[in-house]
Each structure stands twice: as structure tokens, then as C-alpha cells.
């Protein structure tokens, strides 16, 4: 099933364009890197607040409300451009260990966000300034570590496989 899916992706006109046009891959990769950088930077801003290391006089709910829309827009661009990069060499990426670890870390970062949103945030009062409960601080630490891992794996992909 995976093989037929990878074959379908590889034979799509977009995948062929991405693999054959000399400017397509570098251009899409540039947008991918910039959007990922904004995803990480904006999440880090909230994570540092959760950990109590910065912006302690800004409420977490206020900071999340104002910063996370930026994160989501950047994440959408990163996901689309990431999909296009994957399509350029679906078999190669699928077999790459750094790529697989990156996807696993992305899933873990998503789970961490869901647990924080649906459990930690509902239990504790995060509307005020100052330190937050331990669960929220742990969520911030995990998120920052996972996203550093995601960026590192993304870079290691470039050193462990040819782009085309």
C-alpha cells in the first residue's frame, strides 16, 4: 500500500515538476526553511513564557492568542512546501532515517500541544502573570526540545540523501 502511494506521488505532475525544474526545489526549500524558522521562533516565544524564563508579565493566554496565529500560518506554508519537497523524491525521503525521525517528532510535538491544550490549560489558570503550574512548564520544555529536534533532523536530511 505504501509502495503504491509513493508511486502515485512520484508520478504526479507536481512531483515531476519539482524533480526536474532546476529552480523549483531550491525555491520551495527556501520557503520551507523560512516558514519553519517562523514556526520554531514563534513557538519558542510561547514555550519560554510557559517555562517562566521570559515574558513573565505577559499572560500565557494573551501571548498564545497573539502569537499562535502566526505559528499556524507559518506551519501551513511549511506543511505545503514540505509536501512538495517530499514529492520530488518520495521513495528517497520515505527511506531516510532523519526524515522518519522528523515526522515522529512532529507527531510528538502535536500530541504535546493537544495534551497542553485539552488537559493542562483547562486544569490551571494561565490568565495571570508569573509562574505557571509544573505541567505547563513541562509542556513548554518538551515543545522547545521537540522543535529543536525537528529543525536538526530537517538539516540532517540534507546531509544523508541527495535532493533529487
Amino acid at each position: 500500500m505504501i509502495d503504491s502511494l509513493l508511486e502515485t506521488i512520484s508520478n504526479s505532475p507536481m512531483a515531476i515538476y519539482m524533480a526536474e525544474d532546476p529552480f523549483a526545489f531550491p525555491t520551495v526549500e527556501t520557503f520551507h526553511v523560512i516558514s519553519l524558522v517562523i514556526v520554531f521562533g514563534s513557538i519558542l516565544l510561547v514555550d519560554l513564557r510557559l517555562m517562566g524564563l521570559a515574558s513573565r508579565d505577559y499572560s500565557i493566554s494573551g501571548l498564545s492568542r497573539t502569537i499562535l496565529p502566526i505559528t499556524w500560518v507559518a506551519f501551513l506554508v511549511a506543511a505545503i512546501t514540505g509536501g512538495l519537497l517530499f514529492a520530488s523524491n518520495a521513495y528517497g525521503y520515505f527511506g531516510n532515517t532523519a526524515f522518519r525521525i522528523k515526522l515522529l517528532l512532529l507527531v510528538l510535538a502535536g500530541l504535546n500541544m493537544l495534551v497542553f491544550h485539552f488537559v493542562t490549560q483547562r486544569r490551571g489558570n494561565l490568565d495571570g502573570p508569573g509562574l505557571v503550574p509544573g505541567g505547563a512548564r513541562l509542556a513548554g520544555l518538551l515543545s522547545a526540545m521537540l522543535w529543536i529536534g525537528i529543525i536538526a533532523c530537517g538539516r540532517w536530511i540534507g546531509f544523508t540523501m541527495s535532493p533529487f
Partner: protein
Amino acid sequence: MDEMLQPLIDWLHAQPFQQTFAGTFWIVPTAQTIHILCVAIVMTGALVIALRGMGLVGKEWSLARWQARFHGATVAALWVLLATGIVMTIAEPERELLNIIFRAKMLAVIVTLIVAHFLSRSLRAATSDRPIGAGVRLVAVLVLLSWMGIAAAGRWIAYAG
């Protein structure tokens, strides 16, 4: 320009530390990873400042407060960017020093740093909720776009010889 830089490249190749940087498989990817993480810190600061200048985000804080929040982190990240950039250049001197996009990137970094310095001085005075002048808003957006262009140039170094 290439002829001018060639002796430096030859000298670097003769140094044991250059051979260590180039021959140790994890040094360049690790330096690049740290480089990207620091780009994230610089670019996010510029993005939030530009958006706050337009009144789109972070209204609980004045621009001066946001500027103070990002200043230390941005300066620290810029020093780490310089250090990791030097490591990458030592590891692969031809790839960087003989590359026209690398040179354009370095020029853009210098210009952006100068403009960003004057922008930060203007923002320190923006302590009230009153909207800042259109000129300062424009410069904040230009600084953001410039950092994005520099990040893009960084990626294109790999593709342009």
C-alpha cells in the same frame, strides 16, 4: 575578488583545524542546525516588531517593551550566527568565499544590522500605545523582509557556485 581570496582559502586548507572541521561528519550539520535556530530567534523578533508596529499583534505590550524583550536574545543570536557562520566557512571555504550569493548575503547582513540598529533606537522611545510613525513602521517591515532575503540567500548558497 576570487584572486584576492584564494590565498586565504589556501591558507585555511593548510590549517589542521580546517581539516578537522571539514573531515568530521557532524560539525557542519550541527553548525547549520544551530545557525538556523538562531535565524529563528532573529527573524521572529523582527516579525513580531513589524506586526506590532502595524497594531496586529502583542497589544498588551508597547513597542518599546517588545523591543526590550527581543534585544538581548537577538544580539546573542547574532553572535552565535557569526560563530557558526565562521565554522561553516572554515569547513568549506570555496563554497562560501567564492560564491557570489554568499558575498551578497554578507553585504545585506551589514546593511540590515545598521538599519536594525537605528530602528531599535527609535523603538526604545515608543513606550506609549500611540501608533508609531509610518516611516518607522516601514523600516520595521523592511528589516523583516531583509532578514527573510538573507535567510533565502543562505539557502541558495548551496545551489549557486
